[in-house]
C-alpha cells in the first residue's frame, strides 16, 4: 500500500507547495511594510509604557506605574470626557447630515457635477488651514463672524467662542461638523450610486412609498458602508488634534484638552514619554474593545458584514 504522497508525482507536490505559499508571497511586501511602520512602533510604545522614560531616556522597568498614575490623574479622565463629548455630538450630526445630504444629491440635483467638488472643499483642506480659517472667523474682538457680524449688528455681544470655557468645545464641534460632513455625504452618495436597481424596481412594482423604500431597501443595503464610514469617522474624531491645537491648544484651562493634545503635551512639552506611551496604549485598548463590540453588534443586529 503506497501513500498518496508517494504516488503523487514530484512536480505535483511542488505545485501544491507553491499554491500554498503563493498568497503569502503576494501579501508579503504589504505585511513587511505594515510590520515595520505600524507594529514595531506600537510594540516599542508598549515597551516604553512599562518603563520610566523621561527626556528621551529609557531607564527602569516600572511595571504598571505609568498606567496607575494616569488612571488616577483627573486630567487624563478630563481628556477622555472631552473626547467623548466631542465625538458624541460631532459624529452623529455629521452622520445624519451626511446621509440626508447624500439622499438629496442622489435625486439628480441640477448642477451636481459642480456641487460635489465644492462640497468636498472643507474636507480637502489641511486641518491647520481649517484651524486658521475658523480662528479668523470666530476670534474675539476682530473675527469676521464673531465681531464683524454678530457683535456689530448686536446679534450677540462679547463673542469669543474659543476664549470661553463653556463655548470652546462646542465651537470645535461646529468646526469639525463643517469640515467632515461633506466627507460623510460624499462617501454615502458613492454608496447610494453603487446600489443595484433591481430591488427598487421590485419595490416600485409592489407600490412601496419613499419611506418604506428607504427603511426596507436603501438602509439595509447601505448598512455595511454606513457602519464602516461611521466607525472610521468615530475613531478619527476621537483622535482629533490639529484643529484643537490651532484653535484652543486645549484651553481655556483644560476644557478642550483631548487625549491627543494631552499626549502631545506629555511627549513634547513635559518629555514624559513613558506616561504618554501608557496613554496611547490605554486609548488603543479602549478602541480595540469598542471596535470589536461594534463589529459584533453590526454583524448580528444590522447584518452589516
Amino acid at each position, binding site marked *: 500500500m503506497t501513500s498518496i504522497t508517494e504516488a503523487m508525482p514530484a512536480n505535483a507536490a511542488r505545485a501544491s507547495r507553491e499554491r500554498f505559499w503563493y498568497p503569502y508571497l503576494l501579501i508579503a511586501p504589504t505585511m513587511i511594510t505594515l510590520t515595520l511602520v505600524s507594529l514595531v512602533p506600537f510594540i516599542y510604545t508598549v515597551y516604553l509604557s512599562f518603563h520610566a522614560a*523621561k*527626556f*528621551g*531616556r529609557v531607564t527602569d522597568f516600572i511595571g504598571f506605574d505609568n498606567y496607575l498614575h494616569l488612571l488616577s490623574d483627573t486630567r487624563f479622565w478630563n481628556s477622555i470626557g472631552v473626547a467623548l463629548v466631542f465625538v458624541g455630538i460631532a459624529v452623529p450630526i455629521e452622520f445624519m447630515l451626511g446621509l440626508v445630504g447624500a439622499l438629496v444629491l442622489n435625486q439628480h440635483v441640477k448642477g451636481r457635477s459642480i456641487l460635489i467638488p465644492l462640497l468636498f472643499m472643507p474636507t480637502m483642506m489641511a486641518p491647520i488651514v481649517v484651524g486658521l480659517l475658523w480662528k479668523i472667523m470666530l*476670534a*474675539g*474682538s*476682530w*473675527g469676521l463672524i464673531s465681531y464683524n457680524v454678530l*457683535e*456689530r449688528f448686536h446679534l450677540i455681544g*462679547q*463673542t*469669543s467662542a*474659543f*476664549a*470661553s*470655557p463653556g463655548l470652546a468645545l462646542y465651537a470645535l464641534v461646529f468646526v469639525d461638523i463643517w469640515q467632515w460632513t461633506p466627507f460623510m455625504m460624499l462617501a454615502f452618495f458613492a454608496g447610494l450610486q453603487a446600489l443595484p436597481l433591481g430591488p427598487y424596481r421590485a419595490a416600485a412594482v409592489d407600490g412601496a412609498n419613499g419611506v418604506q423604500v428607504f427603511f426596507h431597501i436603501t438602509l439595509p443595503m447601505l448598512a455595511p458602508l454606513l457602519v464602516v464610514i461611521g466607525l472610521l469617522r468615530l475613531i478619527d474624531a476621537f483622535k482629533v488634534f490639529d484643529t484643537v491645537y490651532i484653535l*484652543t*491648544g*486645549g*484651553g*481655556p*484651562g*483644560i476644557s478642550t484638552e483631548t487625549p491627543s493634545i494631552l499626549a502631545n*503635551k506629555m511627549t*513634547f*512639552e*513635559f*518629555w*514624559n514619554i513613558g506616561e504618554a506611551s501608557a496613554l496611547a496604549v490605554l486609548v488603543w485598548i479602549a478602541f480595540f474593545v469598542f471596535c470589536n463590540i461594534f463589529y459584533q453588534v453590526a454583524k448580528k443586529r444590522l447584518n452589516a458584514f
Partner: protein
Amino acid sequence: MRSMTWYLGAGFAASATLIAATTFSGSLVRAQSGSFYAEAAKPYKGTTIRVLDEITPLQEALSKIVPEFEKETGIKVEWELLNHFEVINKGQADMLSGRGYYDAVMMHGFQLGPMLSAGVIRPIDDLVKNPKLADPNLATADFIQRPYKTAAFAKDKQYAFINWNYNQVYWARGDLLSDLEEQTAFKAKYGYDLAPAKTIEQMRDIAEFFTRKKGEKLAGKPLASDFYGIVLEGIKGGSTFGVLWNNFMKNYGGDIVDAAGKPNFDTPENVAALGMWAQLWKFAPPGIAEYSLVDVPTVMGNGIAAQTIAWSDFVLGVDKPGVSPFAGKFVYAPVPVKAGSTVRSAEAEPSVTVISAASKNAEPTFLFLEWLADKKQQDKLIELGQGGVPIRSSSWALPAIKDNPNKTLFAAMESTLEISSAKPKMPKYYELYDMLSSIAQEVGLGKISPADAAKKGQAEMLKLCTSCLL
C-alpha cells in the same frame, strides 16, 4: 641648599610672571587688532557649525553680522532661525535625542531647568578658562549682570554667555493719557493725575476708566467700536503665566516656590495678586483668553486698548510708521509695582545659546558664541537694529539708543533689565507652567475664585514636586 632652593624658586616665579605677562599682553594686542578670533580659530578653519536661534527682529538684524564671523575665522556657520515654538521643540528634541545635529541651540531661561536636569547642555567652564579660546577682552562685567548671572550659570557651573535680554515694559496710549478732557475726568473720578501707571492699582484704575462702549466718547471722539482699558496675554501657554507670576505675584510679595524650592502658591500675597489679575480681565477684550504674546502688540497697534504689559522687542516691530497708525503716540514705563511695596519685579526672559552635550564642535561653537557676545558685535547689532534690546550695560550709551526718539521705551527697558532674572531652574518647569497657566486662565475667566485657585495650584504643584528647584 636653602639659598639654592630660594634662587631656583625666585627664578621660576620670575619666569612664570614674565611668561604670563607676555601671554596676556600678546593676547591683548591680538584682541585689540581684532585678530583674536582669527588666531583662536586657526585649528578649526573649514569646520561647519550649526546653530539654531529664534526669529525676532533682533535676530534678523544679527543675521547681517554672522557672515563677518565666517570671514574672520574661516569657520562656517549654518545659522537657522525658527519661530518661538519651533525653536523650543526642535532644539530640545535634537538635544534630548543625543543626535547633535545642532552644535548650539538658543534657549529661553525657562528651558534651562529641564534641559540641565536631562544633562544635555555642555558646561563651558573649561572653555572659558582655556587661554587659547577665551577672549581676554570679552568684558563679562559689562553684561547686564542680573540677567547674565541668573541665566548663564547653574550650580557653580557656567553654561553660556547671554544672547538675548527679552523683557517686558508697560505700554500705553500717550495720546489718551495726555488728553486734557480725559485727564480732568480721571482726576475727578480717582483723585490723582492721569499718567502712565507706576503702580498696579493705578493700572487697574486706568483700565476701568478707559473701558468704553461703542458710541461713547474717547478723547472727545465717538467710538466706532468698543474700547478696552487693558489688554494682557491670556492664552494657555506662551508667557501668560509669566506675566501673572513676575509682574503681579512677585510684586505683591508672593512667588510660586519658597527659597528652598517648596511650592508656595497658596499665600495671601498670591491670592491678592490673582484677585487683581481677575479684575483686570474684566476691562480687557472678550478674546483675551486667546491672546498670545504676539496678539497683544497687534491689539495695541490696532488701537483698541489703552495699555498693556508687553515684550519690548515686539514693541520695536509695532511702534514705527507704516505699521501702526498710532506709531509715535505710545508711551512706555517700567512694569508697575504694588502700591507701597519695596519689592520690584518684572517679567523677563534672559536667553542664552548653549552648546549641545552631543556637539562634536564645542570649541569652534564656543568661539562663535563668544564672538556674538563681544562688545564690537553687540554695538553693531544695536546700530543695525536702530536700537534693540541690549545685553551689555555700555549699550545704553550708544547713539542708536541714547538719541532714539523712543526715549521712554529704552528707559523702561533699562529699568526692567536692572531687575530681570531668568526663570528658576526647575526640572519640572513645563508641567508646573502648563498647570499654572490653566489656573491663570480660569481665574481670569471667573471660573474659579482667587482663593480656590491658590489652593488648587498649591495642591497640583505638590503632586508634581515637593522640592521644585534643580
